[in-house]
């Protein structure tokens, strides 16, 4: 029963006191310390009731495990409490604005979660007879149709498991296309504002990366692209370009860049990380791209899950379509057909290989399609428009106090500031971001893109209300003024109020501890005894 408050004062008695108890547990009310599983679990405890099998003769040959494993277990209530307590140390979109530029932390609808768990999707095996998974093949095909229609392209590779995996898939298709044409170009052009995955992917496939400069206005310099093409005539494989770019700007010269690249017998790879800004407003295929991955976990709301799983289908132009990897769905008069091996190929189909076992991130496909169906063509366009409007609303709310590196101009779905407004305050971009944590916000993306000093990239997404944006803007304004007033302590020691203060990353990297080691009792050594 609840406390009977009759006759007992419940008003804040001594509310003015600054006294804060140093608690015995180290906990601070709802903010609780939680040990590691290995400190609370026991080897003989299990939270799963299973009956020991009846006596039988094992057929493991000489390979039976001889030693213990060292995996402690917890009962079900202990497990629940352990992970619930851990969860409470995490920031999440469901709890607050998460303005990580380029990462697109938008609302994750729970209808998507529900549908992914329907047994007809969640409990089907990738290799059960194809005659028993016709609905799964239909779903993959329908999602592919939506992606092709939204991007104005004619083929799609569904299997890549994440954005960078999609990049790899697109670049492998490009390499295969060059090889098929008897060419072996070595160079990939990458703007300096690109995501790190772009040059890493190019290098993985043995390409040499040539960096393209940005113009004063933050977009790719068409003249630099043309010069790089001329300097490396006949040796350009592709350009990898993000559009809208990582400065939150649309590349105005994109069609000219595409034309120049195509004229050089090269391909245009578009990093689709920021596709969410232009869905329903423009189609990348109409802009001249040959391949683009789509992060279903960004544009189409599948949850980020603390760092994955993602999903990165790649749309392809006519020229690259024949090289799409296995498996793929073929449409014919007799219906849909899942093609899984080279033996099933028809004329003109020249897959470069396979990106992964099975069919890709089916669980994410269901979620993304649920999101698309919910929005429809009208809702998807509205979402892009709201995302861009929200970013510009934040921009105009802050541009008089924070500094825009490329001058006052509209942005797309994210707004980029640099750190010149912090000059001479003694506060760095990092300090500023950490102070946001004390205010209940996840920091924006920091120090990226690399083209801007002390970059702060803010992407509010379409999921934020006007009131939420107003409070966010007001908070940042207060922080800026505080920094300018010289209240450096608020920043340099921040965060003060989070579950942890700043963590020592140098120490973590110098002598890495990547696994838990059971404590060993200290032994007196002969040397110590002397």
């Amino acid at each position, binding site marked *: 029963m609840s406390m009977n408050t009759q006759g007992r004062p419940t008003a804040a008695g001594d509310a003015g006191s600054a006294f804060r108890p140093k608690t015995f547990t180290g906990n601070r009310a709802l903010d609780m310390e939680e040990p590691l599983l290995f400190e609370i679990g026991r080897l003989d405890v299990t939270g799963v009731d299973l009956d020991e099998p009846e006596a039988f003769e094992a057929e493991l040959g000489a390979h039976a495990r001889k030693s213990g494993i060292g995996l402690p277990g917890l009962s079900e209530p202990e497990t629940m409490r352990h992970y619930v307590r851990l*969860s409470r140390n995490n920031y999440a*979109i469901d709890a607050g604005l998460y303005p990580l530029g380029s990462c697109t932390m938008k609302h994750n609808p729970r209808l998507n979660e529900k549908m992914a768990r329907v047994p007809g999707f969640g409990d089907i095996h990738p290799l059960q007879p194809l005659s028993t998974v*016709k*609905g799964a093949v239909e779903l993959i095909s329908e999602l592919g149709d*939506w992606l092709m229609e939204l991007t104005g392209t004619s083929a799609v590779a569904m299997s890549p498991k994440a954005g960078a995996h999609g990049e790899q898939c697109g670049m492998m298709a490009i390499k295969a296309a060059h090889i098929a044409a008897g060419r072996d170009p070595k160079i990939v052009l990458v703007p300096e504002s690109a995501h790190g995955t772009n040059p890493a992917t190019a290098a993985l496939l043995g390409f040499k990366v040539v960096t393209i400069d940005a113009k004063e206005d933050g977009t790719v310099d068409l003249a630099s692209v043309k010069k790089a093409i001329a300097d490396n005539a006949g040796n350009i494989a592709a350009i990898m370009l993000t559009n809208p770019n990582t400065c939150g700007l649309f590349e105005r010269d994109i069609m000219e860049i595409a034309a120049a690249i195509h004229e050089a017998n090269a391909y245009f790879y578009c990093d689709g990380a920021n596709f969410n800004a232009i869905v329903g407003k423009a189609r990348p295929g109409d802009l001249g791209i040959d391949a683009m991955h789509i992060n279903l976990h960004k544009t189409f709301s599948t949850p980020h899950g603390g*760092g994955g799983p993602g999903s990165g289908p790649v749309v392809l132009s006519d020229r690259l379509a024949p090289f799409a990897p296995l498996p793929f769905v073929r449409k014919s008069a007799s219906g849909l057909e899942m093609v899984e091996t080279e033996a099933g190929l028809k004329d003109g189909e020249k897959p470069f290989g396979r990106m992964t*076992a099975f069919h890709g991130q089916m669980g994410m496909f269901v979620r993304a399609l649920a999101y698309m169906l919910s929005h*429809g063509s009208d809702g998807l366009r509205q979402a892009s428009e709201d995302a861009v409007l929200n970013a510009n609303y934040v921009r105009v709310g802050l541009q008089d106090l924070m500094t825009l590196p490329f001058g006052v101009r509209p942005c797309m779905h994210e707004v980029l500031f640099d750190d010149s407004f912090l000059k001479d305050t003694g506060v760095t971009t990092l300090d500023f971001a950490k102070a946001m944590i004390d205010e209940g916000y996840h920091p924006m993306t920091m120090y990226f893109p690399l083209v801007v000093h002390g970059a702060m990239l803010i992407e509010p997404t379409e999921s934020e209300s006007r009131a939420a944006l107003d409070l966010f803007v007001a908070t940042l304004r207060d922080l800026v003024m505080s920094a300018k007033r010289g209240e450096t302590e608020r920043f340099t020691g921040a965060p003060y109020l989070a579950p942890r203060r700043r963590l020592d990353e140098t120490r973590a990297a110098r002598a890495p501890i990547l696994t838990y080691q059971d404590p060993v009792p200290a032994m007196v050594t002969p040397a110590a005894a002397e």
Partner: protein
Amino acid sequence: MRYLPLSDTDRADMLARVGVSSIDELFADIPEAARLKGLVNLPTRKSEIEVERHLNRMAGKNVAAGSVPFFVGAGAYRHHVPATVDHLIQRSEFLTSYTPYQPEITQGTLQYLFEFQTQVARLTGMEVANASMYDGSTGTGEAVLMAHRVTRRNKAVISGGLHPQYRAVVEGLSNLSGDKVVSLPADPMGTEDILAAIDGETSCVVVQSPSFYGQIIDLKPIAEKAQAHGALLIAVFTEVVSLGLIESPGAQGADIVVGEGQSIGNGLTFGGPYVGLFATKQKYMRQMPGRLCGETVDAEGKRGFVLTLSTREQHIRREKATSNICTNSGLCALAFTIHMTLLGEAGLTRLARINHANAVKLKKQLSAIAGVEVLNKAYFNEFTVRLPKPAHDVVEALAARGIIAGLPVSRLEPGKADLANLLVVASTEINTDEDRAAFAAALKEVLA
């Protein structure tokens, strides 16, 4: 639209504040020729009821594994996942959080990743593990690239017992990046002479145990020969539950251990998302791909966790990174860790014994049928049978009788006459005696 908080009034006020007269002014940088004038040619918005109806209609065309006697494995296994697991991973704080770049407010994610890494290292018998890969197949591809970095060689030798789609992933990447692959022929009996393929140019030997055909392979001599030639042994598994009962690859001398973790905590979901497990020796730690979580302290000396050794990674090193990976499989790793925590060593080893016992029972029943030959002497929860006719036809005939019998090898290895009659079958704790009896009876009927 139910997911969009802005009202039309909000939009009008905000446009005015931004100083534009229409939303399209904010899209003015898009070349005129490419601007869409109307809506794309797709259906318009749907209510929750309509979306459910639309998707349920598709789901209804699939046969859920749990609705029939079900014996397919071959890289993905149907196990029972406790209800607690799915509840916990759907907590907002786990589900809707990003990669833990701000450790002060993501200790939840970081601590479970540290627990995950420790569980994976202990299971595989290795010193260090990373915070997960996309899945077992891509993890295998990354392991080969890592071995090339460590040995500064570029020739991988691949066992004929490796899952054919894993092999295809390695071959596809190697072909396009200029590395060499020597793939041994399919090895249903587990008797290939892989030692003969190892020489002074070999970077790594990739061996799966239990193999695609269910054979348990003795890794020790392979590790010894590989290491004597300066090469690494990459040990692969697709059924992580087997590690509860079989000697760990680490104890047998493997240099890199990589595998699929789906069996623990994660449903079948038609092949993904799954969770790749990746472990190695301490001395190769800095050549590992993917995210790593490490222990440290905060400014007040309290223990905490951070992503570490990021100087290996693409966002710092760009074209010199060890891998292009950005995303891992965080939430699937969480499901793995919670399920493994619930099991503990006592539960995992018992689960493994039940799986093995069920496979032993199934083997007895199937080998009693005239014309059916089981190829395996040593196996865990999966084995290969040779049928008197093409396995594909048998599986289709059994599916028509409501039994999903296993994987005909010809589906992944088409056009190879010696493999056409082979069927790979798995039996986990999910299967009952009735399931196995129904399978055996129907198979007898189909073969008669």
